[in-house]
C-alpha cells in the first residue's frame, strides 16, 4: 500500500533553514516507521539522516516525533497511523541534521545526578541481600532506555534546557529508591538546585511521551517526598 511521508529536512551545510520533503513509500505488511525511513534512505534519497540501531525498541536511538507524538520509529506500525505521516526530530533539542538531534546535553544531565550506586557499607564477598519487595521499588524506574522522548516533551525543559529533565530525574529516582543506595544526600546539591526537581511543574507531558509507559512524574514526586522526609 502506498503511503506518504512528510519528513523534516535540515542540513545547514546545504540550506540554512529547515523544510519538509514528501516521499511516497510502498508499505509492506507490518512495516514500522523505521522500515519506511530505511526504504526512503536506500531507494529514494540517500541523504536522509536519522539514528537507529536495535530496531527492537530497546536502545532508544530512533526516538522522533511521528504525527505529532514522540515515539520510537522502530516500534510504531505504519498501519496504525492515519493520513500523510509527518516525521520530525524530537522537539526541544537542537537539530544536528534531519531527524538527528543533539543528545549531548541530555546525557550530561544524566551524568549530573550521579547515576551510580552509592552504598554506605562495603560489599561482602557475596551479593547484597535485597528482598523481592524491596527490588520492586525500582520497577518502573530501571527500565528507562534513555530515548529522550520525555525530556523532549517537557515544557519546563523547552524554556530552560538546563533543567535536568524527566529522564535524568527518573534515573536519579532509580538509584535513590534502590534499598542498596545511601546516596540521596550526595545527590542533593544537584537535585535540590535551581535546575533540579523544583523545575518540574507536574505537567505530565513526559508520561504522555514515554514509549516504555514509564512515569517520570511519579519518579520526581517520589524524589520530592524523599527529600521532604530528609528535611523535616
Amino acid at each position, binding site marked *: 500500500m502506498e503511503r506518504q511521508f512528510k519528513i523534516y529536512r535540515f542540513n*545547514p551545510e546545504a540550506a540554512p533553514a529547515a523544510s519538509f520533503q514528501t516521499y511516497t513509500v510502498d508499505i509492506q505488511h507490518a512495516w514500522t516507521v523505521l522500515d519506511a525511513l530505511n526504504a526512503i534512505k536506500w531507494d529514494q*534519497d540517500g*541523504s536522509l539522516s536519522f*539514528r537507529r540501531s*536495535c530496531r527492537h525498541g530497546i536502545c532508544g536511538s530512533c526516538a522522533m516525533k511521528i504525527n505529532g507524538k514522540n515515539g520510537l520509529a522502530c516500534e510504531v506500525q505504519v498501519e496504525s497511523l492515519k493520513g500523510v505521516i509527518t516525521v520530525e526530530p524530537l522537539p526541544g533539542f537542537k537539530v544536528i541534521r534531519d531527524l538527528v538531534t543533539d543528545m549531548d546535553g541530555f546525557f550530561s544531565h544524566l551524568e549530573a545526578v550521579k547515576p551510580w550506586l552509592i552504598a554506605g557499607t562495603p560489599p561482602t564477598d*557475596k*551479593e*547484597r541481600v535485597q528482598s523481592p519487595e524491596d527490588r520492586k521499588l525500582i520497577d518502573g524506574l530501571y527500565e528507562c532506555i534513555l530515548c529522550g522522548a520525555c525530556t523532549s516533551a517537557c515544557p519546563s525543559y523547552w524554556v530552560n534546557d538546563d533543567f535536568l529533565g524527566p529522564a535524568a530525574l527518573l534515573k536519579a529516582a532509580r538509584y535513590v529508591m534502590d534499598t542498596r543506595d545511601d546516596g540521596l544526600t550526595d545527590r542533593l546539591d544537584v537535585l535540590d538546585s535551581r535546575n533540579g526537581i523544583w523545575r518540574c511543574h507536574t505537567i505530565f507531558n513526559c508520561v504522555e511521551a514515554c514509549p516504555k509507559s514509564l512515569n517520570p512524574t511519579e519518579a520526581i514526586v517520589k524524589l520530592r517526598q524523599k527529600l521532604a522526609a530528609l528535611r523535616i
Partner: protein
Amino acid sequence: MEHHRHDVVVVGAGIAGLYAAMKAGESADVGVLSKVYPTRSHSGAAQGGCAAALGNEGNDSWEFHFYDTVRGGDFLGDQDAQELLVKEAIPVMYEMEHLGVPFSRTAEGKIAQRPFGGHFADFGKTAVKRACYAADRSGHAQLHCLYEQSLKQGVRFYNEFFVISLIIEDGTCRGLVALEIRTGVLHAFWARAVMLATGGYARAWRVTSNSHANTGDGLALVAAAGVPLEDMEFVQFHPTGLYPHGILISEAARGEGGYLFNNDGMRFMEKYAKSKMELAPRDVVSRAEQTEIDEGRGIDGGEYLHLDLTHLGEKTILERLPQIHELVVKFAGIDCTKKPIPTQPTAHYSMGGIPTDLDTRVLRDGKKQAVEGLFASGECACVSNHGANRLGTNSTLEAAVFGRRGGMVMARFVKEAGPILPGAERPTREAEEGFEHLCASSGPESAKRIRAELQASMTDNVGIFRTAAKLQKQVALIRDLKARFENVGISDRSRRFNTEITELIELKYMLDFSEVIAVSALAREESRGAHSRNDYPKRDDNQWLRHTLAFREADGSLRLDYKPVVITRFQPEERKY
C-alpha cells in the same frame, strides 16, 4: 585531523567495552569510542540472562557449568578459556551486583536464577537454574549499570565516533583513526593500549536478530592489519526470529510450552527430536525448521513456520510472557493470544572472531605472538569460549568476564609500557585518503543493492545448511560484489552526520569478513555445532578438531591456517541431549 591521547582507548561501549573501560579507568586515563551512544549498544537487547553457577536456586557448581559449555560448543572450545570463564563468572556476577545491577531476587533476597537451554547439574543430567537475570531486561540492566559506573570512573566518552582504521606498525598498535559522525572530521587517537569490543556481525544476513550497528567492524579492522580471524564459519542461528525481520522471540516462549507447527498443521519437531520436542537445543530446532521450509512445508509454502502459544491461554501469556506479547503486537501487528506467531531461524551470534589469549591480547599469528598494545574482548573476540556453538547466556558472561579481565591487564600494561609513542604521519594520511576516496564515490553501483544481495545470499548460501556448491557460489559472489563495490556511488556530499558514508564503510567491512566466513566454511568439511554441511553430515574429530585461522594477505587473498584445540579435562564425546 584532530589528535587525542589516552593511556587506553576502548572501541565499543557494549558490556565488554564498558567493563574494560571501567576497570582500566581505576588507574589509567581511558577514552571510549563508540559509533552509537553507549546505552544504544547491542548488549542492551539481551533479555534472558547471564550464566553463573551461584547455586542460589538449586545445587550448581562451576564444574557443571564448565561441562555444559564444553559440550554445548561441540568440543571445539579451548577448555582453559572455558574454565576461566565459568570460574570467574561467580565473582563477576557478585561484582556486578555490587556495582548496582538490579537483578531479580529470590525469596531470601539473593540473585534470582532461571533455567535455560543446555544448563544442567551433575554433568548433563538434570536441568538447573543458572541464568542470573533482571526480569527480561538483563542485558539492558547490565549495560546501563556499566555505563554509569564508567562515568563515575571519569572515563572520557567519544560518542558517535566511528573507527575506520587501526594504526599498527612493527607489530605494535599505537592508536587508531576515527570519524566524528556529527562533523565529518577525522580524529587520530594515540594510545598505549587499544581494546576492540565492537560486538557481533550478524547484520551480514538478511534475517537477523542483530542491531543495525552489528556489522563486524572490529573484525574487518584487524583483518586489514594482517591479523587472522578465528573460527568464522561458526554462526549461531536462533530458531525463533519473528518473520520477516528476524527480531528475537526469546526461548522463554517455548520454555513456557509453545508449539511449532508446519503448513500441514503438524508439530514437526516429532520428526527431529522426539523426546525434547520444541525444547531441543537451538541448533537442532533451527535445522528442523530449515528442513521444513526447504521441503516446502513452510506456512503457505513461505519461509516461516508457526510458533503457537494460543493453547496456553490469554492469562498465562499475559502473565508470563508479557514482553513477547507486546513485541509481537508492535512488530508484527499480531495478537499472539489469538493467532500463531510467524517465526523463522534468524542469524544471531558469532562464535568466531579476533583470536586472543586468556588476557585478551590479540594474537598476530593466531597462536602465540601478540600484537603489542592491541586487545579484544566480547562478541568480536574468539578466546575461544563457545567453540562451535554458544550456550545461551554465556555471551554476556563472556563480555563481562573478559572485558573486565582485559581492563585490568591493560591497566597493568600501560604502567609498565612507558609513555604513548609519538604520532605517525603515514598511517593517518592513508586512512584520510581512503576515507576521502569513499566520500567521493560516484560510480553507478548502488550500495543498497550490493548490501541486499550480500544479505540475501548469506542467508541462502551460508545459512543453517551448507554445501560445497553453495559455499563456492557464495565465495564467487562476494568477490564479484567486492569488485562492484569499487564502482559504488553515493549522493550525499555533506559531511555533517552523513549516514550514507558510515553505511558504506559498514558495507565494506561486511563484504570483507563475509568472504572470510564463506571461505572458512567451505574448507571445514564436517558438521559440528552450528556449522552443518549436508555433504559432510558427521563430526570429524580426526581431521577437524582444530580452529580455523584466516589471514588476509597483502595481495588481498585469503590464506587458511589451523591450530589445535586446548583440551584439559573433557575428552570429545558424542553430543546427545
